[in-house]
């Protein structure tokens, strides 16, 4: 249905971002948490619009913006992510000397870029969304101006992100040259008419996948991830580990889902993605073994999770992919929130040694962090188990047994490094004093919400599965 309603979520975010910027300039206050509350209000309104549009298929701009349930589902996931990230940032920013009001505006803008990406099936529009997202992300990564690592992160992210964008645009141009269109549906339709993929089409498609491969950080396009994740402010790392990945995968689903069914030579693309998936799972997990910095370890773990998600892409099972994202959102933000919880004024505790004895000293933080780690490692009855379960069982059903065996063995490796944090938290005596700032109600709210999410999704996921089912059946390929 062609309706201005399709614009509402986006407009809300942009108005919110601008309002935050104006307030930041006009009200000189040392404490910026009010900006966080304002942006949370706008995020909630945005979420409200998304929920309202569920099942109504609003579209605008000649269908370039199309809110099918699939888009709405990812939008809501991203909005929840942003709300949680805003909540964990509130105290963090003043503690870690990054007290700038633009932060919240940039988050809203990044989110608007992501919403554009998930709700369009025109590659040019997707590219515009990507650039909106990227510009905000580069700035967010470098927000700690006085910190060398943060600046390094921003520069690396910027350079490699630009490369990725360049690949994407080049691929787009080639696809346009082949099919005279930038709409995914038309491009795929064009493939149908050909008896085999021309080299140009093949290269175009490959380059587009490479471009998104950077965003979702799959091997061998993952090199930027550890440095950026380590250098960026921790809440932003949490944001990076979910947001760009989610949109990247959403676009890949839109691009590849019809492609599997029509195009000739899809085996080549398929086997390339197969190799990428296997490599991502293996390398991500193996390198994570050697990390002693928690943020770096979580960076590699997020690479590994991208590998599991690629398995879902390969088995063409969109619902398991979406379920994985919902779970991943809660467990990963939860883990990062626990990492943020271990900090005080101008000091973050990020080395493994710092975690010795934490489990008994701060039992609630320790226990929730342990649950998130068990979930990331895929132990029942947490959501992480069920998510892996769905992905791998769908893959076996599609005959990808060898990939699944690689996947489960890789996740066995992951058990080791996730449990290593727990070993430090519970089984080693502390080597030095770690005292943390506990006055952080928003953060504890997030920890609790994520804990609830992880357990609810692991034990009674029924409702979410139902929603996902609706979303999958609605995927529009316009």
């Amino acid at each position, binding site marked *: 249905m062609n309706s201005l309603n399709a614009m509402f979520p986006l407009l809300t975010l942009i108005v919110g971002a601008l309002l935050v910027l104006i307030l930041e300039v006009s009200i000189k206050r040392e404490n910026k948490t009010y900006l966080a509350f304002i942006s949370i209000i706008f995020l909630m309104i945005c979420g409200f619009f998304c929920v309202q549009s569920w099942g109504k298929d609003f579209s605008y701009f000649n269908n370039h913006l199309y809110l099918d349930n699939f888009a709405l589902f990812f939008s809501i996931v991203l909005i929840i992510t942003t709300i949680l990230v805003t909540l964990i940032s509130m105290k963090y920013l003043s503690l870690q000397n990054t007290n700038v009001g633009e932060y919240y505006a940039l988050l809203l803008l990044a989110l608007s870029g992501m919403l554009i990406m998930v709700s369009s099936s025109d590659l040019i529009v997707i590219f515009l969304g990507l650039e909106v997202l990227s510009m905000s992300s580069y700035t967010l990564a470098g927000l700690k101006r006085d910190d060398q690592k943060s600046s390094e992160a921003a520069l690396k992210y910027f350079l490699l992100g630009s490369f990725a964008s360049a690949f994407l645009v080049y691929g787009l141009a080639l696809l346009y040259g082949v099919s005279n269109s930038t709409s995914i549906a038309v491009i795929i339709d064009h493939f149908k008419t050909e008896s085999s993929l021309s080299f140009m089409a093949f290269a175009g498609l490959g380059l587009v996948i490479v471009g998104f491969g950077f965003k979702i950080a799959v091997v061998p396009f993952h090199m930027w991830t550890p440095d950026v994740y380590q250098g960026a402010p921790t809440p932003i790392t949490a944001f990076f580990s979910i947001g760009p990945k989610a949109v990247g995968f959403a676009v890949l689903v839109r691009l590849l889902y019809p492609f599997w069914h029509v195009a000739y030579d899809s085996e080549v693309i398929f086997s390339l993605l197969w190799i990428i998936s296997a490599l991502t799972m293996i390398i991500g997990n193996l390198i994570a073994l050697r990390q002693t910095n928690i943020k770096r370890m979580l960076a590699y773990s997020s690479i590994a999770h991208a590998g599991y998600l690629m398995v879902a892409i390969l088995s063409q099972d969109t619902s398991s992919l979406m379920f994985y994202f919902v779970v991943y959102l809660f467990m990963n933000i939860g883990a990062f929130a626990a990492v943020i919880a271990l900090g005080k004024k101008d000091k973050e505790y990020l080395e493994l040694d710092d975690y010795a004895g934490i489990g*008994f000293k701060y039992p609630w933080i320790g226990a929730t962090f342990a649950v998130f780690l068990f979930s990331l490692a895929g132990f*029942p*009855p947490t959501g992480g188990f069920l998510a892996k379960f769905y992905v*791998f*069982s769908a893959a076996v059903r599609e005959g990808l047994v060898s990939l699944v065996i690689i996947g489960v063995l890789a996740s066995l490796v992951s058990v080791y490094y996730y449990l290593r944090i727990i070993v430090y938290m519970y*089984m080693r005596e502390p080597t030095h004093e770690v005292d943390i700032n506990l006055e952080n109600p928003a953060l504890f709210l997030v920890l609790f919400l994520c804990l609830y999410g992880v357990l609810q999704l692991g034990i009674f996921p*029924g409702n979410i*599965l139902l929603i996902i089912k609706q979303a999958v059946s609605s995927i529009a390929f316009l």
Partner: protein
Amino acid sequence: MNAPILSIITFIPLAGALLLIFINKDKENLLRTIALILTLVIFVISLSLYINFDDQNPDPQFVEKSSWIGYGINYHIGIDGISLFLVLLTTLLIPIAILSSWKYIGKRVKEYLIFMLLLETGIIGVFVSLNLFLFYVFWEITLVPMYFLIGIWGGKRRIYATIKYVLFTMFGSLLMLVAIFFLYSMYYKATGVYSFNIFDMYKLVLNPSIQVWLFLAFALAFAIKVPMFPFHTWLPDAHVEAPTAGSVILAAILLKMGAYGFLRFAMPLFPDALTKFLPYLGVLALIGIIYGGLMALIQKDVKSLVAYSSVSHMGLIMLAIFSLNVEGIQGGIYQMLNHGLSTGALFLCVGILYERAHTRLIKDFGGVSKQMPVFAAFFLICMLSSVGLPGLNGFVGEILCLFGIFKANMVLAILGVTTVILAAAYLLWMFQRVMHGPITNDRVHNFKDLNKREIAYLLPIIILMFWMGLYPQPFLRKMDASVNKLINQINQKKTLFTETKKESELLWDIKTIENTAEDHQEKEEPVQ
């Protein structure tokens, strides 16, 4: 049967663990008392399972079924003659374990008890699940509390031991998970219905070439858990490092999960592959018996001696189960219970010694019986039960096992008998060095005999040992129907496949038993 007894037994410990979270951690005795009373209540409730169990009915009883997540994932539990006693063993040993660690665990009591209760939920869940998904969930859940129990309250090398334990077990179970997916998708392809129900899976008739791989995946997971040679290396580490109660539960119950897995899943699901691998499995079990026994002989540490004796005894149990006849399987299950009691009790005795001496090395002891006469009597009975002295439970189990093995394979049986000889050798020798002789270590003079608490937790086990040794009928008769059904099932499925061999030569070809049975009727009718 109105109340969902099985669910109550399974989830009361979980509820108890949640309750304990909210109690002040400094009130240690209150915490211990709550946990103890709770587990004792569970034990009493579980006795009603035994009383109400219908021994003529081979099918699972006390069945509860309700839909859960969908796609074949249902909450489906029940017990039959095979799992009944394993559940009872669990509910009996957990309160004993809690009682035994009353003084020994002085640090972080609250967390310790929470993990104990979680462990009980997990273990009972494994034995009652009739849905593969549910089974796998519980199977993995048991890992987590055990990981903490060894890792936090264990000995010097606890972190190494606990990580090794988790990684070994997970390696097997993850491959089993892939096999479960495979079964699941094949069932879907064959019938168009999603199911994890174990009875639906039994009906699948699989091509032997697929069975081989699936069986290997399942068998690996269970063989690591049992543990069968050569997958046993995690066991001595885990046992030696674990706190006493942890060793008791590990040896007495967790190892049984592996054997139970063979009986419930690996064997009836893949009978053709089973027949193919039977000789190899038998040899591995036999190596386990002899190797475990010889290793036990040379141990300097009492606890690792008992740990290796577990390897040896579990080998005999597996050999008996693989004999695939009524005596063997019944003896195997009976011996599982015996081993649970006697090895559990031996670990308790070692724990009692350790609490007094703070060492477990055999050479540090000697002449203990002079100082601790009551303990000496208890220890002697436990040890003789493990050796298999007539009149005690171990004898009944071992005789049945060996009868079964003799029926199946004479050579294996003759070599398998060495388990008795070896057990007598290493246990009696150890007993002699620890309990008799002159007192060489001055500290032994200060040893106090058993206190009331220690007698309280050893006595029920001793009574059971005599009862199960003198009058085993009440136990064996409850198993008859289910064991017979299991054996029929395995044999019937084997013949079914040979009949339909021609149709099933393709790798992916699968049929359910019902379908093939109908096909046969249709074919036979015109002939008549």
